[in-house]
């Protein structure tokens, strides 16, 4: 689509006396030659030929967007400011709520969880390494694991962030999660109204060689 935007001056007029109109236009031609003439109501053919002869642009019976006066504009701007302040406050509250939840007993681990190990965390866990087959991770809070999981996960938090892990056994708030749904590079798994919702955070890597 190709479009351009213009600001035009518009002269809107109701014609009652054709002769008067033409006289007025003859006198003020220089003033009106760059205007768009909008005729309201009755539009006699004499006027039409007159306008065409004078090469004036015109429209007949169109509804124009009404300009607002300064006071109305100021009012509107104020309201907008108020709205922005309110939504900023709401966003701030949301961040605080989430971070207080996150910082509440956050454990950060960067070690391979080998087979046979059982990690039991009260609170949230950020794990920056693999969970091997035969290992178990349990958290009462949220869980983020940035590498592949081949062991078991028992998470009771509000959300999990997991990479695609086709060999993992994942139980989230007592419900087993189907690994096939964790198909993206990073997935957000959360509980909303007793429903487990999985949303991609990072999409699958594209293999350009194929």
């Amino acid at each position, binding site marked *: 689509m190709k479009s351009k935007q213009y600001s035009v001056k518009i002269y809107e007029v109701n014609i009652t006396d054709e002769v008067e109109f033409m006289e007025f236009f003859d006198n003020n031609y220089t003033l009106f030659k760059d205007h768009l003439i909008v005729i309201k109501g009755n539009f006699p053919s004499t006027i039409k030929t007159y306008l065409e002869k004078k090469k004036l642009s015109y429209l007949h019976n169109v509804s124009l967007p009404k300009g607002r006066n300064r006071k109305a504009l100021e009012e509107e701007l104020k309201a907008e400011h108020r709205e922005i302040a309110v939504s900023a406050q709401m966003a701030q509250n949301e961040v605080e709520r989430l971070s207080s939840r996150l910082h509440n007993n956050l454990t950060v681990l960067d070690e*391979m969880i*080998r*087979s*046979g*190990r059982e990690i039991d965390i009260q609170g949230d866990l950020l794990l920056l390494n*693999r969970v*091997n*087959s*035969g290992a178990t991770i349990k958290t009462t809070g949220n869980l983020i694991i940035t590498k592949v999981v*081949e062991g078991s996960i028992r998470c009771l938090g509000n959300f999990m962030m997991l990479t695609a892990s086709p060999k993992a056994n994942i139980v989230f708030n007592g419900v087993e999660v189907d690994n096939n749904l964790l198909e993206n590079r990073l997935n957000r798994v959360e509980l909303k109204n007793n429903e487990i919702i999985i949303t991609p955070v990072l999409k699958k890597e594209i293999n350009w060689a194929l």
Partner: protein
Amino acid sequence: MGIVIAVISGKGGVGKTTATANLGLGIALNDKKCVVVDFDIGQRNLDMILGLENRVVYDIVQVMDGEANLKQALIKSKVNDNLHFLAASQTKDKSVLESTKVEKLIAELKESFDFVILDAPAGIESGYEHTIEFADAAIIIVNPEVSSIRDADRAIGILDSKSAKVKAGEDVAKYLIINRIVADMVESGEMLKSDDILEILNIKLLGKVPEDKGVIDASNQGKPVILDKKSIAGQAYKRITGRLCGEKVDMKDIEVSDAGLFKRLTGMFR
């Protein structure tokens, strides 16, 4: 002062004892004094694979209990003077091992040998824990299959928590040998690739040993396969022991079969 290396696997039957025998002999062939110790109390096999079963008079339990001294119990290999062997007891079981006695024995062995190789029992029970407790390093033997990898992973986990060195705040060096690789099966995707195994276990690769029918016969005859110059497994153990003795030996890519290469070439001309 020698270095103590435990040969472990977690899972049984992956070739731990065969590897121990070949590593011991390979090190001896590199002119280093080496002793291999069978820690698989109650199920000793290493004596047979080394061809020394009829020479066992005293075993490790008798040495630890003071019924015999170390000199009496050590058996010199028929093949190489640098290689010595200490047998496990076949009559007792794993519960006879005690930490203090094991520590004393290993300290004594360290005095007179460059390399002390301990053949761990399969599994992760007390016998295994005693084998790794005083080791400076561990060689983990795996087969390219998931069950072996998982058991090895578990064994490494225990090594990292129960070893005396780790408890003292040091690291136990860990090296991986992937045993019984069949190139065709790796190529067709039936067998795990070594890169995948290394990613799971996250330890250094010491070497890869290809599947070789000659190994069984060599074990039955009591002549470790490293003595067979034509054997591909023997050559692999040669490279591995060379690396252990400080030589720089490149990794040979045994995961590409010659047949596969041939197929590819003929495919090109078709």
